[in-house]
Structures are given as structure tokens and as C-alpha cells.
């Protein structure tokens, strides 16, 4: 099935924000917005769900903490409890202060790295990935809003987008639906 989109290009983020609000008020579906920099509040007006990556990071941190504790408890206390400089290796808690720096660092390490990897996976970013950029100018100084034109009157929609302040409006028809 051929998907029809209208790409509307804006040159100012304030106008873009205003346009997004109007488009949503008219119940048109915004497929995607491409911007050269983060536009503060754009996710709110687009009605995107808040990210849950912080919750992931917290859980990853707990994993890191568990790894650190399990690892050091096995190595230092259970497997070979040597007397190293008189440190009490009788139980984990007795020698705990010496392990805290590692517990802390592994918590941070796991939380940070796994969160970043989660981010890459969820946003489908990796080396040699083909860039999905509809217009090169959106990485420099233009803003692009892709609106789904599926069941709407294209003429009417174009007119409406033009009134929201779009500089260029183009109809895109692609066969490979993604």
C-alpha cells in the first residue's frame, strides 16, 4: 500500500511549535518532526509519552550493585578469605567499607552503560545505519513536520499547513511502507 505524507518545512521553532498545536487540534496525525536541535517542550505539545529510561537506569544500577556484592563476597570472603594487611575477611559486612568504592563504581557503570545501550536500541541507532533524513536542511536550520495524508483531502491539508506558516509543502508517496 502506498503511504502518502505531506512534508511541511518551517524555519522557526516557535512557528513549528504553534503549527504542531494547530495540527493536533485539527486531529491530523503527525508522523514525525525533524529538528536540527532539541526544541524545548516539543514532546509535550506532540503528546508523546514520557520516557521510561530513568526507571531502566535505576534497575540497571541495582543489577550493578548486586554484581559487585556477589563478586566480592565470593572472591574475598568465600573462595579465599586471606588475611591481607589485617583486614577482617570473616564476613562481608566486616570488610564492607573496603568494598564500597567498587560497589559504587559498578552501580554507576552498569546504570550508565546499559542505559546508553538501551537508548541506542530503542532509538535504533548503530554504526553504518542508513540515515533516515527526509531533507538535509533539517540538520542545519530547517524544521520538518511529516503529516499523514492517508484519508484526508490533500488540497485542504496543504492549504491548512500553509496557513500554519510552512514555507514549503511537498507530497511524498512511497511504496515501501515503513
Amino acid at each position, binding site marked *: 500500500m502506498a503511504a502518502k505524507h505531506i512534508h511541511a518545512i518551517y524555519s522557526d521553532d516557535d512557528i513549528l511549535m504553534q503549527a504542531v498545536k494547530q495540527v493536533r487540534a485539527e486531529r491530523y496525525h503527525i508522523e514525525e518532526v525533524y529538528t536540527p536541535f532539541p526544541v524545548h517542550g516539543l514532546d509535550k505539545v506532540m503528546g508523546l509519552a514520557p520516557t521510561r529510561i*530513568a526507571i531502566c537506569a*535505576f534497575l540497571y544500577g541495582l543489577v550493578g550493585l548486586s554484581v559487585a556484592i556477589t563478586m566480592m563476597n565470593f572472591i574475598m570472603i568465600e573462595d579465599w578469605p586471606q588475611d591481607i594487611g*589485617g583486614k577482617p575477611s570473616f564476613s562481608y559486612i566486616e570488610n564492607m*567499607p*573496603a568494598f*564500597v568504592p567498587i560497589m559504587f563504581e559498578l552501580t554507576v557503570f552498569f546504570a550508565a552503560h546499559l542505559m546508553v545501550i538501551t537508548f541506542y536500541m530503542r532509538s535504533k541507532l548503530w554504526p553504518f545505519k542508513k540515515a533516515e533524513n527526509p531533507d538535509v536542511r533539517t540538520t542545519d536550520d530547517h524544521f520538518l513536520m511529516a503529516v499523514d495524508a492517508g484519508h484526508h483531502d490533500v488540497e485542504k491539508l496543504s492549504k491548512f499547513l500553509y496557513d500554519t506558516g510552512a514555507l514549503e509543502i511537498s507530497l511524498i508517496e512511497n511504496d515501501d511502507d515503513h
Partner: protein
Amino acid sequence: MYTLPSKLKLFAIIFMVVGALGMLAGFLSAPSTTAEVKEMMAAHGDGHGGDHGETATHDNVKENHDGTHGEDAHDSEEAHLTHVLHQMQNRPWSALYIASFFFFMIALGTLAFYAIQHAAQAGWSPVLFRVMEGITAYLPWASVIIIILLLLSVFHVNHIFHWMDADLINPESPKYDKLIAGKSGWLNPMWFVIRACIYLLGFNLYRYFSRKWTLNQDNAEDNRWFKKNFKLAAGFLVFFIYTESMMSWDWIMSFDPHWFSTLFGWYVFAGMMVCAITVIAMITIVLKSQGYLEYVNDSHIHDLAKFMFAFSIFWTYLWFSQFMLIWYANIPEEVTYFVTRIEDYNLPFFGMVAMNFIFPVLLLMNSDYKRVNWFVILTGIVILLGHYVDVFNMVMPATVGKSWFIGLPEIGAMLFFFGLFVLVVFTALTKAPLLAKRNPFIKESKHFHY
């Protein structure tokens, strides 16, 4: 304008009266002779008796070391009783000192935070300036109380500062203590009082002028007073970081005159800031809920809660750094400080880490929770109690040793100073409009949104 509710006034006065009665009971019930100590110990039952028995043996051993072999059991028993007597006599004084220092540090921490907001030209906080100024209004009161308590110690009305005993630095005396004598260049009563006056005068002068100049700015035509305040704040912060460090050596660390720690000043500072920011948040929430702070929104509370969270972690970082370095190296002259705390104050010592670290970290980590007012109040109460225990842990082991308990004198002193603090702070809030008028950042602050 804020008007002091008569109920609040009554509430504060009731706290002060009840607290004063508690303190009085503490002073009256402190034993004055060793015979009374004996009686009190007998009344306590077996568990305690065993404990004290151990100390008696310990004292005995020590005396034998000194070469006094002829001592019989009775003398060492008497020496032990005298030791306990001194601890028990110190207890109501220490309780009073801890509570007065605790509220002093809230006022001083708020002043430092206030100066930081000025010097950093923070855009979010000007709507809270009058709340902070209200809290720092307690500083002159706290300073007077602290200086009186220090003078009472200097004139030997109480013996909570061990090093003030003149015999300790007299080589002829049997009590001569070479270590303390070696430190008498810094730790001598005269210089101690002069230093205290310099610190308190500096803090109070800054508080007086910054308050005056922000009020001037309200009616000014230009930003002259704002600029003056900016420079004053920057100057004060330099003064503060030196004097705060020395103040914590003098007023807290010198309770253990044989012990020293380099990051102690920072550690006290971190605790001070947590308490101060918590109190700012709590008073802001109270005033907001009564409809007095029109422009304060969730984002301001969120920022304050973030500071509470971050400074709780900062405090823990310093607490742990101090503890772990000493624990790891285990040098006898340093480690006794923590040995006494872990052996005799186990629950307060580790309990405060739970209250000051684990609790706020878990409760204030979530960004949504930081906007929920009752959550911030709840966490704030735990943080404040935790930091009371922190000051308790810094002072009590050196002054009362094993004879500690959180009973009438401690709770009484806390209630008294709480009442006084509430009365002074809320009275000060009625003295000026709760919104600074011509602060150049006030508009940004009104629309602050995170």
C-alpha cells in the same frame, strides 16, 4: 504581608515551656555526688551493672599501668564512680548545647545558601528570598545563646569542653596532658572566645546588611543595592568557608581534643546545608499551603527537593570518606573516635546513615515525588531528625560517653529550641512582604518552570 497566627504563637510558647521544664528536670536530676551515682546505678538493674563493672576493671588496669599497684578495689570503684558522675553532670549541658547548635546550624546554613543564591545570580530562587531571610532571623538569637554557652564552659560552670581544664596544661599537675598542652596555642579559652566572637560577628553582620539592602532594593530606582548585595554575598562566602571550618574545629571537634580530621569542617558544612535546605522547603510548603506565596510553584519545591537529595548524598560522601579512611588505615590515635561510637553508640551511629542517606535517596530520587509536598515534608522530618542524631553523635561520646540516653534533657532541649525557632522565624516573616519587589531576577523566578 504575613500575619503571625495566634495559634502558632501559642503552639511555639507551649513547646518552649514544656521544653524548658524538661531541661530543668534534666539539670535537677543530674547527680551531684558519687553516692547518688551509686544509687542511680543500683536502681538501673543488672544489665547496666554488668556494663559498668567492665569499665571498672578497665579503669583498674589503667591505674595499674600508671604504677599505682597499691590501689585497692575500693579506690578504683570510687574513680569509676567519679568518672560516671562527671558524665552524668555533663549530660544536661550537652543536650542543651546540641539542641542550640542544631538550630544555629539551620540558620547559618540558610544564610550560606542565601549568599550562594545571590552570588550565583540564581533565577529560580528570588521568590524564596524572604523565606530564607525569615529563617536567618534566628541567627542573632542563636549566636547569643551559643556565646553564652561557650562562656559558661570557659568559666567552668560546666565541663563539656575537657581541654578547658587548666590542670591539663600545667606540667606540675598529675592531670597534665602533653597532647592537649601541645595544642594550647590554639585551644586556649581566651583565644577560643575571641575566635567565636569573630565568627559570630561576621555571620551576623552579613545577615544584617544583606537583609537591609534587599529591603532597600524594594524601594530603589536602580539596581545599586542589588549589586552591593552581590558583592557582599561573594565576600561573605569567602569569609564563611574559612570561619565555618574553624568553627567546627572549635565548637565540635574540640570535644575530642586528642582527635583530628581534615575534612571535618566540610562534613559539618554538608550537614548544615542539608538541614537548612530542608527547613527552607518545609517553611515554604507551610506558607504556600496557607496561600501566602502566590508565585511559588511545584518547580520551586522540586528544586529545593533536588538540593535536599543532592546534599544528603554529599553529606554521606563526606561521612563515608571520613569513616573509611580512618577505618582502613586503623591508626590508633585516630581510630578511637570511631571505636567509641561504634561500640557505645551503635544504633545512633548507623541509624543516622539510614535516616540521612538511604531514606532520602530512595524517596527523593523520583522526579514526580519531589513535587509532592507531603512527600517532601515527610522526608524532611526524617532528614532533620537524622541530622540531630548526627550532631548528637559528634558531641555526646566525648562528653557523656556511655551514660547517654535520649531522654528528658535531650528532648526537652530540642522542644525548647524548636519553639523558640518557630516563634522567631515566623515573627520575622511578618516584618516584610513575602515577595521581593525589585529584584532583577524576580520575574524569571515567578515564571520559573522546570
